């Protein structure tokens, strides 16, 4: 599986003596047969010689996987899936936690630059796009999805939100002491396997002044991992073994019942 961490380019930080530091209480989430989701807890501290009011934003991103999405359209009275469209840049998991709603912390441009907030994710469908010359302007990006493009993009976000994979918690970061904060982020059972990245950004006066990145991995462990690897590394043997088990079970059951 190609699991890349979406790596946002390190943003320009405003020069300031303030700094943020943070640590995850767990850096490895093990998905075993009893996995029912996990809670990621992060503690951090703000070092600031001045006493400017600060805001903390924590962004947790999961591995990026292309999203295939189709729209249902009515054809001859039957609802049929359209040709699937592939969107790229959508993290498999995306959760923001902050001390206040993001739009109160910073302006639109800043958030967009940082990719902070679901609305500011760079999700697009490159295969549907091509460049052409329009009105004498060269290299204009045109999407084959046309005016519906935003509907498609919104649907990607909406479906991910419904699955509990995208969310924003504007009270997710709480100060437990003057300079010590805590953030909690819940991973649902459906959270994808792979490397995650937690980005902690300190804002003052609507500008990012300090940023730290921590990573964690969500990985299958124990028997789940063994079976998953078996199924993907030697699929034919896996198929034969599981079928042999099935036939054996059927045979054993009929033997057991014959004795009775």
């Amino acid at each position, binding site marked *: 599986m190609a699991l890349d961490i979406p790596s946002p380019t390190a943003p320009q930080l405003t020069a300031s003596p303030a700094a943020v530091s943070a640590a995850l209480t767990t850096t490895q989430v093990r998905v075993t047969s009893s996995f029912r989701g996990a809670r990621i807890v992060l503690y951090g501290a703000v070092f600031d010689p001045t006493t400017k009011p600060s805001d903390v934003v924590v962004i947790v991103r999961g591995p990026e996987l292309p999203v*295939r999405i189709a729209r249902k359209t009515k054809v001859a009275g039957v609802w049929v899936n359209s040709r699937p469209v592939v969107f790229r840049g959508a993290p498999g998991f995306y959760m923001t936690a902050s001390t206040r709603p993001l739009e109160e912390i910073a302006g639109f441009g800043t958030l967009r630059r940082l990719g902070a907030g679901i609305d500011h994710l760079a999700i697009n469908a490159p295969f549907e796009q091509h460049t052409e010359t329009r009105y004498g302007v060269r290299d204009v990006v045109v999407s084959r999805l046309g005016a519906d493009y935003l509907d498609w993009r919104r649907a990607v976000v909406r479906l991910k939100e419904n699955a509990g994979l995208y969310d924003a918690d504007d009270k997710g970061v709480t100060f437990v002491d003057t300079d010590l904060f805590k953030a909690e982020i819940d991973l649902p059972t459906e959270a994808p396997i792979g490397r995650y990245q937690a980005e902690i950004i300190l804002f003052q006066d609507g500008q990012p002044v300090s940023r730290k990145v921590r990573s964690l991995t969500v990985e299958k462990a124990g028997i789940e991992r063994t079976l998953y690897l078996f199924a993907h590394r030697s699929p034919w043997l*896996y198929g034969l073994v*599981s079928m042999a088990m*099935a036939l054996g079970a*059927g045979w054993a059951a009929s033997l057991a019942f*014959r004795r009775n």
Partner: protein
Amino acid sequence: MDLYLPIAEVSVNAPLLVALGALVGFISGLFGIGGGFLMTPVLVLMGIPPAVAVASMANHVAASSTSSVISYTRKRAVDFRMGGVLAGGGVVGAIVGVEVFRWLRLMGQADLVVALSYLIFLGVIGGLMLVESLQSILRRRSGQPPKPRKDRRPPWLYGLPLKMRFPRSRLYISVIPPVLLGVFVGVLSAVMGVGGGFVLVPAMVYILRMPAGVVVGTSLFQIIITTSLTGVLQAGRNQTVDIVLATLLLVGGVLGAQLGAKASSRFRAEELRALLALIVLLVGLRMGLGLFFTPDEPFVLMTGMG
């Protein structure tokens, strides 16, 4: 007790799945069918990705069919030669079906084709079976003698070349119709995640005119061969067989199948057929009618094969 499935990547309630396997196994033993047509839709409703449900079902169907076939063999109710001919077609059908399913998933049309197949095949077969069995029940209730069975077989069955003797079925017919039937059922098995008994049994009775006593056992025998192959192919080509899911289902399934086979002798054949027809019809309608209603959410995420 919830269990995280390694391939399906969802968490499921394990005792519930075992119970479901037992219930479907019971129905399977009672009516002499694989039961996949019931189990696959239920699994999808429970949130298992359809591709995994369809593929893992093959293991469950193979297990419960094996468990029943052994009992039928003891009663000498399996025509192995006919089963072998059907399975020959089934092998070709399964290989084609797995590739067709793979292609449909790439095109994003797997859901549609599965739903339509359920609506059409289950709807038609359930409807016909219901009418036929109700007629015989009514005839018996009103004291009329049972309708004499028309033993006139369709002439084309005899006009075709490549004739072969099937002593246990007391038939001397061309192998072309059973082979074609096998191919068709093999494709269905891969695409719909079913054994295909609901197509095979009526086809063997009404088209091939096999004696009723050997129909069920022979159909189950052919289903074992076809679904074993489908299961291995789905695992090898698509990596969609969830061994944990399959095991949970078949533990209940094989036990249920035995109990069902025992219970079947307490009911009259036409009553069983009427009941089965109702179940088949309901499942077909449940799966297919969704296609006609305006969906709440016009967009769908395609899982797997990114």
